[in-house]
């Protein structure tokens, strides 16, 4: 189990190393950078959903907190992007504690509604507090990130840096899962009562993991701001939060790799769809991006109905069955004797 996870990280690292050579095209590199941001957020969200069994449909708001903190502090106050990012993290963590305190003490899923409410509030503030956030027209002129004197000004540099952060995020998450704390979280998901009876402080652990996932989202938001160099309230609406939940659920809640692959897959899906729409046009069928919402909803519903463990585990179980069938036919029956 544990080994597998570290091997997985190795594979991701190898893929990251060769990807720019394979992709070549700047546009697709950009797509992969956005995918990195989603992967980072979803890794954190998966810790919350899959391991603590709590759902947040307002994680886009934590991204917004990171992005706006970075944008405001760097453009209006001229702070260094790294300090600003740190402030975003602290702010997001503080908000997470504030929201977790009431909702996590309660049994059940009040967090879902609280986060949805919070996301709506953040959106309202982003639009209405024009002095700070620039309102609907947003904030421009966000500086690029610099790393040891290197300005991250090419897509290749950004690609390596952003995916490096994703790998670090995965590594931390995997470390955590295979520790006392991670086991406590999984236990909470399995049975809150039993976990409590073994000394797991449910409320505190849940708040901690909410904070952690908020920190992931906030960093992802800051990185977003420093990549696109311009932000407005648009991308931080409730729909984006729902999309994040979809990514995690489609890949598989209970496994960090599920969430990771779900995020990767759904980040690339729009590309696939636009590719498909060109193909469909040759048959005179017009595809509109308006259908995207419908498609995401449809995918989420189908997965939750028919493959609730998600694509990742669902497919790996399918493969396992196929393999064990082959082994059976290959005369390996003795191994199955009781």
């Amino acid at each position, binding site marked *: 189990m544990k080994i597998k996870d570290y091997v997985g990280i190795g594979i991701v690292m190898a893929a990251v190393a060769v990807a720019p050579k394979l992709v070549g095209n700047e546009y697709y590199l950009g797509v992969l950078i956005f995918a990195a941001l989603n992967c980072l957020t979803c890794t954190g969200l998966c810790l919350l959903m899959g391991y603590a069994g709590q759902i947040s449909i307002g994680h886009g708001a934590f991204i917004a907190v990171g992005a706006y903190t970075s944008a405001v502090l760097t453009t209006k106050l001229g702070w260094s992007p790294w300090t600003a990012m740190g402030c975003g993290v602290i702010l997001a963590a503080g908000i997470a504690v504030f929201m977790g305190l009431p909702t996590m003490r309660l049994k059940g899923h009040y967090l879902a509604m609280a986060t949805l409410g919070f996301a709506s509030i953040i959106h309202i503030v982003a639009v209405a507090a024009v002095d700070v956030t620039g309102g609907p027209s947003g904030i421009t002129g966000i500086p690029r990130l610099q790393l040891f004197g290197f300005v991250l000004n090419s897509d290749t540099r950004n690609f390596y840096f952003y995916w490096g952060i994703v790998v670090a995020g995965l590594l931390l998450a995997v470390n955590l899962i295979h520790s*006392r*704390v991670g*086991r406590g979280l999984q236990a909470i998901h399995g*049975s809150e009562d039993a976990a*409590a009876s073994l*000394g*797991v402080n449910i409320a505190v652990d849940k708040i901690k993991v909410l904070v952690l996932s908020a920190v992931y989202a906030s960093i992802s938001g800051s990185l977003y701001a420093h990549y696109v160099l311009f932000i407005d309230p648009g991308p931080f609406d409730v729909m984006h939060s729902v999309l994040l939940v979809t990514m995690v659920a489609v890949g598989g809640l209970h496994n960090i790799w599920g969430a990771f692959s779900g995020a990767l897959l759904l980040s690339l899906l729009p590309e696939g769809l636009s590719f498909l729409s060109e193909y469909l046009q040759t048959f005179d069928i017009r595809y509109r991006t308006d259908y995207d919402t419908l498609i995401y909803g449809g995918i989420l519903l189908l997965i939750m109905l028919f493959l609730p463990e998600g694509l990742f585990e669902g497919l790996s179980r399918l493969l396992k069955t196929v393999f064990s069938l082959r082994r059976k036919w290959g005369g390996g029956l003795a191994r199955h004797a009781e």
Partner: protein
Amino acid sequence: MPNSILRLENLRKKFGGVVAVDDLNLVFNKGEVTALIGPNGAGKTTVFNLITGFVKPTAGTILFKDIRLNHKKPHAIAALGIGRTFQNVQVFSNMTVLENVMVGRHLRSRNGMLMSAFLPPMLRREENRIRASAQERLVLLGLDRYAHLPAGSLPLGNQRMLEIARALALEPTLLFLDEPASGLNARETMAMGELIHKIKSMNITVILVEHDMELVMDISDRVAVINFGRLIAQGTPKEVQLNPDVINAYLGT
């Protein structure tokens, strides 16, 4: 006179209009196996839930040694060395059998989130220790064969055993077992009886709820009978068996 480990004083619990536990006074002795028996709905599980902090008492006092448990949270009560199992088994079915027991060692280390995430090599020794002691509990309960299976895939009997293994990993001084033999076949029930003897010999005070009278009479040092949340008899298994009130509660209307 053996010394007491747990006292319930005028303990009372109301759920809306239902009085589940009614002015209960009970003393449990250290090192003994005490059975709490009574018809369904008598309030036995509620007594367990009250003591282990899952339900807050309406009135009365719960004293463990000299500590008042009344307003403590379940995890804080576990930290005092009080373990329990559940009437409807609650293994962590999403984890392996071994991991289930490893959760039982939760309170035996203090490492937090940052340490676990950033410096796992520093924790390797301790992880190994946790794994080894979890493995020990599995051997003790004869579950080591299943260590790496998902806990949800075990048959009920083994799941009940696993719950006990997990609770034992807490190194409790006081252990509550809620109907440990319910749903088990005759052979499994016998094994459960032996296990409870073994737990007693480890110097753990056991309080259990059980409907299998043969098992109760075999393993208990004392028996307390409750009905409608009230104590109606207590004593040695023999005394209780002959008590007319008890016979009435079980057979009468």
